[in-house]
């Protein structure tokens, strides 16, 4: 049974809230049947839905290259990767369903523009090197963001993240391996890799969200242990991880301010153009319209198929019912 806010009268509600707070304080998991504050539930729905939508929209920029992949091995790897993203979307929509909201409703909200997906997927993929750089940067940033979520306070979300993170790390390695191979290839290939690095670096840093002092939802999410590290901490982590990998690859990260800071034990780096992030989030990125158009088309073109499947299932239930 689902227990909602206010169940059991004011005293009961107070006791439930105290239990919830104690569960969070002890780093234990909240499960779907447990009482939770409405705000906690709404925050989780927003975050998990955004994550699920990102997986699904995120199939598009790379999916465009499955049909053009330049070797059959690369084709198989990319095909499997994009398929994994569909699978991740499925896990995450299922996690959201444990909070009482189904996939079709979340899809409607996405298509109506009421829910977002990661702004990174509103940038175009211009060459096959982009496939490698997305694996390296975008999946790398996703790992930085998501590994701490494996300890998120909400059980179903945390468990789906464990599985997703394992696969993301495989995606990151294949992206980096593609780039290593390309850097050993022709001059044109090396130029393509550097060009893709130049285009994806800053948008990747923006994946961690606005700076901490300008991130309205972060404090509450951290108090609830939905989120475990601040945007800026995670961004620093990503930069520190990526710099030595860039050196090994032989590419230049497009930031003149990037340098090791002995005192801090971290790299210093320039500030991303967060006004660009805000523009892209609001819908003015290079590919926002294209991404939503394709998702909408798939949803609308598939409506008759979903209706037919539902009608067929209903007929079968009817036949079984009359036979019984």
């Amino acid at each position: 049974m689902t227990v909602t806010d206010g169940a059991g009268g004011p005293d009961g509600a107070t006791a439930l809230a105290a239990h919830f707070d104690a569960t969070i304080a002890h780093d234990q998991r909240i499960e779907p049947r447990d009482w939770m504050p409405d705000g906690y539930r709404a925050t989780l729905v927003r975050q998990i839905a955004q994550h699920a939508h990102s997986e699904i929209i995120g199939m598009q920029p790379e999916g465009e290259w499955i049909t053009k992949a330049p070797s059959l091995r690369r084709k198989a790897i990319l095909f499997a990767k994009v398929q994994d993203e569909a699978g991740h979307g499925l896990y995450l929509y299922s996690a959201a369903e444990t909070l009482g909201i189904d996939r079709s409703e979340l899809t409607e909200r996405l298509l109506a523009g009421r829910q977002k997906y990661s702004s990174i997927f509103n940038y175009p993929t211009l060459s096959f090197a982009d496939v490698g750089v997305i694996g390296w940067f975008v999946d790398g940033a996703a790992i930085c963001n998501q590994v701490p979520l494996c300890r998120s306070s909400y059980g179903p979300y945390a468990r789906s993240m464990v599985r997703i993170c394992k696969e993301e790390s495989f995606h990151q390695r294949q992206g980096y391996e593609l780039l290593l191979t390309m850097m050993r290839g022709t001059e044109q290939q090396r130029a393509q890799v550097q060009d893709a690095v130049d285009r994806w670096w800053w948008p990747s840093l923006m994946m961690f969200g606005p700076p901490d002092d300008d991130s309205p939802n972060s404090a509450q999410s951290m108090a609830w242990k939905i989120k475990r590290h601040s945007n800026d901490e995670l961004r620093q982590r990503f930069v520190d991880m990526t710099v030595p990998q860039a050196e090994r690859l032989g590419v230049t990260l497009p930031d003149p301010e990037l340098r090791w800071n002995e005192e801090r034990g971290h790299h210093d780096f320039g500030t991303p153009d967060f006004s660009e992030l805000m523009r892209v989030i609001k819908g003015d990125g290079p590919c926002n319209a294209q991404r939503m158009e394709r998702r909408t088309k798939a949803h609308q073109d598939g409506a008759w198929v979903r209706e037919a499947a539902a009608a067929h299932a209903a007929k079968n239930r009817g036949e079984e019912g009359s036979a019984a």
Partner: protein
Amino acid sequence: MSSDDDHVYLSLAEGHADDARWAFGTGFEDPLHGVDTTLPEGVDAAELTALCLALADDALVAAQRLAQWITLAPELEEEVALANIGLDLLGQARLLYARAGQAEGAGRDEDALAYFRDPAEFRNVILAELPNGDFAHSMVKLLLLSSWRLAQLTRLAEHPDPVLAAVARKGVSELTYHRDHAAQWTVRLGDGTEESARRMDAALAELWPYRSELYAAAAETQDEVEAVLAQVLDTARLAAPAATPVSMGRGREGQHTEHLAELLAELQSVARADPEATW
């Protein structure tokens, strides 16, 4: 950052164990592990080359069409399923190209055969190259192609070439799933709504005649495939179209529709733009 996260993170991001697996898809195990790849006596190299090439071209072209569905499927589950089928076929194509290249003995590998032949050199059947159309078209096409390919691979599992036989044995279990998937959709759509039945009728009317090319290429499969199709259509409450032209296509002889040139132009575009590149 806590040491807790460091531990998890390092094991994920910097681990180099090769035991990682895709969530779905085919895996990348070697189905030829332990199989002797020397050409056995009594197997005609030219015949084996032609047979492997034809089967590989069917699979590659069909996989490319399935890849075109990605991000456009009617449901997320179907994105996963179509990718699964596409990956299976792509895996079969790779093994068959490799074998064709070995049997041919001209030093061509899978990528030379997939990326550097022109449309007239491809030997796939016409049905495989036709554009996707709507979901009904794609499911009818999948039903026809997978029923036919399953019947072929079942027989080829006994082929005297051990490599082709091993590829066929692996393919049989894959194709059994493909055919089942297509059959289930045929039943759902045939016996779903008025609109879905109408779309299935239209797809059958257009694609049914292409069976003649399938049976011309592998006559021994005809009875089995026809029986399967009849059973599926009956369950789906669909009628097979009456009149069938005798011959629609000659893909096995390299005579294709314009759709293949278009499909290959896309498939080969990046590889041909920089032929010296390594991928």
